[in-house]
């Protein structure tokens, strides 16, 4: 049977076109309303994030001292960083120490403390508070407290002396300054500990019972049940810890400058010269804001690369209960 195509009359076509236009207008209006509601955030994001980020990228290619107009110098700041700035590599080494030592230490201590707390039968709230409390102390106050505690003639060395143990010079000795900061970081591990505690309490009991039935010992239970089950939290803590490790500043700056504000940043002997301390020193004390911007962009690229590497590696070792990523 032959088919007969009937062309809609012109009026019908016009009505269909009008309906499409209305739908488009209505969709556009909805988008405008959504944009209007989002505009406070969009404006804030553009003014306080996008603009400064792009400005700093531009400044990184200039000689700029805040007080006068920037002068385009091309890649000179980046060249100076890698070839002429002796303290840059010192700062890189010290920062790598933080990322490689302090971050794993914090995570290990956080897991350890959380595991101890899961076994506490009475007074859990009290112990949880005790472990968490140091996190509430402002960083500057905590750093100053440790300057007092780890003073060469201070209380910690008094105890060490009483026990006939070596008495380090702590923050006045470049070999002991970073370990001193590691102690401070470990003391302030409450935030990480609380997250791990929640993760540990979330591990299904039947998994442990099954492991027991299989004859697994405590180490095997930890290796094959606990660690995989809390691996998403470990992953989260590692990513945040690494980012914060690269941005390590306040404690080191306060310790370096404690006692005498004229101390060079990084005192003693540049052992506490971290990447951000060097960046601050160049930008705000040496007036090399263009160079400081270049330093910050290199840091951004390194942090981004490390984060991406961690995310890629997570496919191998992070276990999600529902199989979701």
């Amino acid at each position, binding site marked *: 049977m032959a088919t007969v195509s009937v062309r809609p009359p012109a009026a019908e076509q016009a009505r269909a076109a009008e309906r499409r236009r209305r739908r488009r207008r209505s969709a556009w209006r909805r988008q405008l309303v959504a944009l209007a509601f989002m505009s406070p955030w969009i404006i804030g994001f553009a003014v306080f994030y*996008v*603009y400064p980020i*792009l*400005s700093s*990228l*531009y*400044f990184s290619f*200039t*000689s700029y*001292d*805040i*007080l*006068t*107009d*920037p*002068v385009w*110098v091309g890649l000179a*700041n980046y060249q*100076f960083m890698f070839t*002429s*700035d*002796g*303290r840059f590599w010192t700062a890189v080494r010290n920062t790598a120490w933080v990322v490689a030592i302090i971050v794993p230490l914090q995570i290990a201590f956080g897991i350890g403390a959380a595991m101890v707390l899961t076994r506490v039968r009475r007074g859990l709230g009290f112990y949880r508070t005790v472990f968490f409390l140091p996190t509430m102390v402002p960083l500057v106050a905590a750093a100053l407290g440790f*300057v*007092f505690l780890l*003073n*060469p*003639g*201070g209380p910690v*060395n008094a105890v060490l002396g009483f026990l006939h143990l070596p*008495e380090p*010079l702590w923050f*006045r*000795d*470049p070999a002991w300054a970073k370990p001193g900061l590691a102690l401070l970081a470990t003391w302030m591990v409450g935030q990480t500990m609380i997250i791990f505690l929640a993760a540990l309490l979330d591990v299904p009991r039947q998994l442990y019972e099954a492991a027991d039935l299989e004859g697994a010992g405590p180490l095997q239970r930890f290796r094959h049940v606990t660690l995989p089950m809390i691996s998403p939290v470990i992953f989260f803590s590692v990513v945040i810890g690494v980012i914060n490790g690269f941005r390590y500043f306040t404690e080191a700056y306060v310790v370096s400058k*404690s*006692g*005498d504000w*004229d*101390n*060079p*940043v*990084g*005192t*003693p*002997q*540049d052992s506490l010269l971290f990447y951000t301390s060097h960046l601050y*020193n*160049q930008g*705000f*004390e*040496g*007036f*090399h804001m*263009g*160079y400081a911007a270049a330093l910050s962009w290199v840091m951004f690229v390194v942090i981004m690369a490390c984060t991406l590497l961690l995310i890629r590696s997570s496919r191998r070792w992070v276990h999600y209960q529902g199989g979701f990523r």
Partner: protein
Amino acid sequence: MRRRVIGLLAIALLAAACTAGGGDDSKPAATLDPNAQHDPMTLTVWSNFSGREGKVTTQVLESVKQKYPWMTVKHVQGKDDEAIQRAINGGTPPDVAISFTPDNAARYCDTRAWQDLNPNLQADKIDKQAMWPSAIFSYTQYNNLQCALPMLTDAYGLYYNVDLLSKAGFSEPPKTVSELKTMAEKLTEYNADGSIKVAGFMPLFGAYQNSVNTLGHAYAAKWYDSSGKPSLSTDPNWTKMLEWQKSMVDTMGYDKLQKFFGSLGGGDSEWSAQHGFETGKIAMMIDGEWRNAFIAADKAKVNYATAPFPVDDAQPDLYGSGQVGGTIMGIPKGVKNPAESWLLVKYMTTETSALVTLAKGLRNVPSTTESLKDPELNADEHFSTFMKIFQNPKSTFKPITPIGVTDQDLFGSLAEKHQAGKVGDLQAELVKLDDQIAKQLQLG
């Protein structure tokens, strides 16, 4: 993709163009007849003073009303150099800025962030050489631009414990660095376990006011040569100073000194009654004139006297001089009422009554030739030592450069390593340091 990149670059360039500050605003001095009728107005002054010192400074700032009844001063405290720079950059500077960091004066002059005051001084026929001792020009002007003026100053000298010196058989303070070393060794007492009980002199860099600046002056060591190149490796006086200082550290023991300093409370004890000199644990030290006020305020029982700091044996004519440098005051670029700002700056930096009141309140050295003659300040023999040091023609601040304190930081770090015995070839390290500082200067 390419379009996006171009778009982003365009935004970046636009952003940067929007950020760029204003240009050079050097102009002839804005003048004002101070005796003419003037509408009431308020000038804002930013400083990093606080507490008691802030109160004293406010009182003196407000006393300008006696001279100019139409002028009211709003003193905003707790504003450091960074805040001042941000305000200048943002186009909302205070009418007058006060800074504790004379090292930054070169940058302020070089960038014209603080206005050149030479035209104002000339318009008001103020003879700079007659008004101020020569030392002030080492930290208030750069490349002939007088962008700051001193509002009081500091001077460094020797404090010594009269009782401890007398017990050890000394009736006079040391005048040369070798005398200082010999006396310090004799004055140092040790406990039975070998730890230090009393230090004849605390030689560690980083302890109280010991720095490459303060000790370097004792050798007249030059930071830069006549062409402006760093001269830490080419001026042998630096090596002499560092070796002298290290020899004292080695004699007393680096670890022992660190533990001793720690037992005093470390650097934090400097601003408390636990200060090693005030408690009689340190027999001699270098410090600024303000220590007199702290000793009095802390009611310390130390029987002390003051003198110029000992100098290099080979340069005895240096004796009597010392490092100086203190609070500076200036007019930021972009102020709305530069003529009125100048009247206030002139009042605070040249008016004898204001400076003497401030000097008595803050216990800092008054900075003009006239105010230095104040009989009451001169009557205090502990304090007058520092007034004399300030007036010595060989007294100076370290040369200021546009890189602020960066050169000191770099040198301070090397000096710390050297005193700890971590520097093998000092000369080679000084050469590297010169290179490093030169590159920082080139960085602009």
